[in-house]
């Protein structure tokens, strides 16, 4: 990693990463680019979030669906772990609860491929600081 030597350097990184994310969203195949975040904090992992993450990685690769899968921290819905946030291009993010392997496959089959909602969506009930 290059050292960040100045405020300008820091802004450059920020803009780069932001544009990279935007690029992801506005890529030439928007229908294929899906973003998936798996909550991987202690309760998530204890509830099997690793397996969920693996299922998404393997299954999406198997089906050649272009997706960005990342881990993230606790979303706060500890009662419904593992939780996964799926953002389809151009759509609002959706959070799914109790995502085990079966549920993960169902999300891929129904929501990601057909935009059909599946049971177990967790309504987002908070404001972010940007609002």
């Amino acid at each position: 990693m290059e050292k960040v030597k100045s405020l300008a350097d820091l802004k450059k990184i920020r803009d780069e990463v932001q544009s990279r994310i935007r690029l992801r969203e506005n890529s030439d195949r928007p229908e294929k680019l899906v973003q998936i975040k798996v909550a991987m904090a202690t309760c998530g992992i204890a509830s099997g979030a690793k397996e969920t993450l693996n299922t998404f990685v393997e299954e999406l690769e198997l089906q050649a669906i272009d997706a960005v899968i990342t881990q993230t921290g606790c979303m706060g819905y500890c009662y419904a772990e593992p939780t996964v946030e799926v953002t389809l291009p151009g759509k609002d993010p959706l959070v799914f609860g109790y995502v085990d392997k079966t549920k993960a496959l169902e999300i891929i089959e129904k929501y990601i491929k057909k935009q059909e909602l599946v049971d177990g969506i967790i309504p987002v009930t908070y404001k972010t600081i940007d609002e």
Partner: protein
Amino acid sequence: MTEFKTHIMVCGGTGCRASQSEKIRQNLNTAIQEYGLEDDVQVVMTGCFGFCEKGPVVKIIPDNTFYVQVKPEDADLIIQEHIIKGRKVSHLLYEDPKTKEMVSDSKHMDFYKKQIRIALRNCGFINPENIDEYIARDGYAALGKVLTEMTPEQVIAEMKQSGLRGRGGGGFPTGLKWEITRKSQNDQKYVVCNADEGDPGAFMDRSILEGDPNSVIEAMAICGYCIGANQGLVYIRAEYPLAIDRLRTALKQAREYGLLGKDILGTGFNFDIELRYGAGAFVCGEETALIHSMEGLRGEPTFKPPFPAVSGYKGKPTNVNNVETFANVPVIINKGANWFNKIGSEKSKGTKVFALAGKINNVGLIEVPMGTTLREVIYEIGGGIKDGKKFKAVQTGGPSGGCLTEKHLDTPIDFDNLIAAGSMMGSGGMIVMDEDSCMVSIAKFYLEFTLDESCGKCAPCRIGNKRLHEILNKITQGNGTKTDLDRLRLLGNVIKDCSLCGLGQTSPNPVLSTLTNFYNEYIDHVENHKCSAGQCKALLKYVIDPEICTGCTLCFRNCPVGAISGEKKSPHSIDQSLCIKCGACYEKCKFNAIRIA
């Protein structure tokens, strides 16, 4: 590929299920089939909307119409009116309690604004193991701004202006703490992050460190700049391996970027952070004990003053803040003190993260503005009480806090109100209890914790809490007297008045608050020898209803002490003098003939 035009979301949370949301779903599906809309409309069962007070809840997408208190028989109406005719079913809409207007779009409902995420802003949003994602969310911009545009005095003024108070329990103004440490003259100073989150049932600091470690690192560097320290230390529980891991990764990446280390952002400011591990001692959350622990000593608190701001780690001025406090700092710098101090209540600014747990539907981490009421937290965000049971109490502040009751539900949560109500903010654990929780046992439970965790240095805490516990034990065993209740209160107040540190001074709170708020339950225990929650085993009495008992002998065969007798095919009875209240008979009886009296 089917493309549904409309989705109908039916709440499948426990509360709504209890009020027949499953039936609503069935009826909706029936109606959809009836009108031949299978290809256009899809019904989805969702997780809890958290609005259980008004449940069952149904939401129509894409127009975001939000129906409350829907009954199964309303399903047909929703399909006919809303889906087919495109008209909202007005009597199912939510009425804004303030304006008395019907609100249809959930985005305009106050309820959805209950949570504001400042400390948790990046948790569940960014990859905590990738510093770039933090930077993309304006990470380290606050540090950059501070180092290039502001003097330490200006930053401290900003912090004071923001009204941020320590989130670890005490609620001491953060800016003031920084100022005192800045004013302590010394060649070496330290910034310490207290990540020894020890309240049982609190896990907000763990979540922040696991989900957004960089926010803490950035804030510590800002603090270092303000107070004149170039060394930071994070004292973290050894029980949090994942948080330790994430923090290490973040430190490594920050160092690689030069955001920690020498000459940060070319400004000449040096700052780095080391980790120190706790080893399982709750009292180390107290800052002087924490410092002793970091010095390799027993984590015993010492009298303040001197405060760590004057003489702390290795005798040098040390600023100690907890994780959540630090997580607020970069936002305050970026968005300004005046943005921050508009959120919250008059004396408690900003938000507070709570770990909602216990007998509640939506166990989880929430962040609400200070001043939110307990009712909003429990019923609207927490989704109400599990299994439709009755709310009894909510415990805040962990072992240092107290149990609040129904009458406190509309109290706005902030530092001062909770103390006035006999509890405290603590680090933000919030445990909800229902009718099955015996408050005497709960008080005893917390006291057991204090007994385990008392450092033993001062007599009131070491011996006083032991005696308190013994009295409570006597009560739960059915041997308590009314004098014991007076004794509890007297002793509790002396422990509060005389103990050395915060742990001791607050340790009787669970006892004192339950005594105040649930006095009748104590009386029930000592005078009627009754535990209505059925938790105090010694007070239980199992009896066999001779009307129902078939004489199957199953209970007789399962009783481990031979307390049950009776002829086959005639009613059995329990010899109370022999019964050890194990409950085996109660569990085994197929006819529900055994009751708890």
